[in-house]
């Protein structure tokens, strides 16, 4: 086997310490393509883009730039599995690229730790790696258990995609990359109204009622599409659509029972690695996966 392709993995906080099944399935799926994720102990919180920005933007962009600079020192491209982390690193990197004054100011601060941000480093998310670097044809070859019985609702989430000038994704309103990756597993894509609608999570700290109203509307849209499951990339969207799903259903006196999967979990199913999902399902999935597993011929 040839030398593995190595990325510097930016872990952040939510995925490694709340939802490690994201990391596990991503690593296992990427191994199939000879891709390795290397960590660096100097990576801190990205910091997250929904509240820390509004506390102190200058500190946010500086810490984010430091994380990019740490990545740069490894010589490998960076992949962030979490959409919030990806957004933070990509936006900070882009801002530094565009604003010489900012770059100077930040590099002056980084110098104390012997770090430097050039603005030229590449920050990727899992879709860049799967869709662009690995390629759909190569992924398809690893699909041993086609999920043709499933209809999947891809929920992209805002921070994975926007703003385009920093994320370098395919489209701000009608992205296709996750749809394409899901199709390689044999699953059908459910047509959801308002493809890029927000999950509501960012305003949980400031207005939970409004946040949950938005979450309910998102779940309603997905339910109407007849999807068997929602697939996400972002751990925050996951928390909102999965962990909070029962709470939303109670609040609005309705029922959803829509399983939510991380994209890596869906790919694991399709590549015959159902075990790594089922081993952790009780702990990380509040919405039961039983019916879904039965449908794809796994053990419920």
């Amino acid at each position: 086997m040839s030398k593995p392709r190595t990325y510097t993995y930016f872990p952040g906080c939510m995925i490694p310490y709340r939802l490690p099944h994201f990391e596990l399935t991503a690593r296992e799926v990427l191994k199939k393509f000879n891709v390795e994720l290397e960590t660096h102990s100097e990576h801190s919180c990205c910091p997250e883009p929904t509240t820390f920005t509004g506390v102190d933007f200058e500190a946010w962009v500086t810490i984010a730039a430091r994380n990019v600079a740490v990545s740069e020192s490894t010589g490998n491209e960076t992949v962030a599995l979490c959409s919030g982390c990806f957004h933070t690193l990509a936006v900070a990197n882009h801002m530094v690229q565009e604003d010489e004054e900012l770059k100077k100011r930040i590099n002056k601060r980084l110098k104390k730790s012997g770090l430097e941000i050039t603005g030229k480093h590449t920050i990727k998310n899992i879709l860049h790696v799967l869709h662009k670097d690995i390629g759909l044809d190569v992924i398809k070859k690893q699909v041993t258990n086609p999920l043709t019985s499933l209809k999947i609702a891809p929920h992209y989430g805002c921070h994975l995609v926007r703003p385009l000038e920093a994320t370098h994704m395919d489209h701000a309103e009608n992205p296709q990359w996750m749809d394409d990756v899901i199709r390689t597993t044999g699953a059908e894509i459910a047509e959801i109204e308002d493809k890029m609608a927000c999950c509501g999570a960012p305003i949980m700290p400031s207005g939970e009622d409004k946040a949950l109203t938005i979450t309910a509307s998102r779940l309603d849209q997905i339910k109407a599409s007849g999807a068997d499951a929602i697939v996400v990339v972002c751990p925050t969207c996951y928390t909102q659509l999965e962990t909070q799903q029962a709470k939303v259903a109670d609040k609005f006196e309705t029922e959803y029972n829509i399983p939510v999967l991380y994209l890596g979990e869906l790919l694991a199913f399709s590549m015959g690695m159902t075990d790594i999902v089922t081993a952790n399902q009780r702990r990380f999935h509040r919405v039961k996966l039983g019916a879904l597993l039965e449908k794809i011929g796994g053990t419920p």
Partner: protein
Amino acid sequence: MVKQETMLDLEFRSWLLEQPEGETLLRCYQCGRCTSACPVAEIEPSFNPRLFLQKILIGDKSIAENQLVWNCLTCEQCEVRCPEHVKIPHILILAKVRGLMAGNVPLAALDRARTIISEGRSLSVSSPMLKTRTKMGLPDLGTPSMDQIVAMLADIGIVGKLENVKSVYGDAEDE
């Protein structure tokens, strides 16, 4: 006649325009597409991004202390639809920053910021979780050098700010 408070207001506007991407505010021609695109405005009539931009444009700094700005999802739907590519969520972020010392910051946001500055993570890492990671065969991630990070932020003064801020948000708003 120029009054004292008007000058103070213009200082807020000038500060904002000097921030990275802050000058995109000047492209706003108040068409209101942001407000009709906004998912929060749809459920909360007092949340009006166009009006917030108008206030900042005319030098009204009250927006920084208005709790409504924290209702922005940062989903960027407004920005995607804005015919002038105004960085609306970013401008609201800058308004939040200016409201910090007046306490316009949700408790959960403040707690999270304090955790980040002291531990380098947005959440506390528990030992059971570290065990879970080991059990799952996931590598140890190590810990970043917090002293270096804090030293790097010295000129921004965030540590002092976080020590002194008192959130005006009640506990009920806390997650």
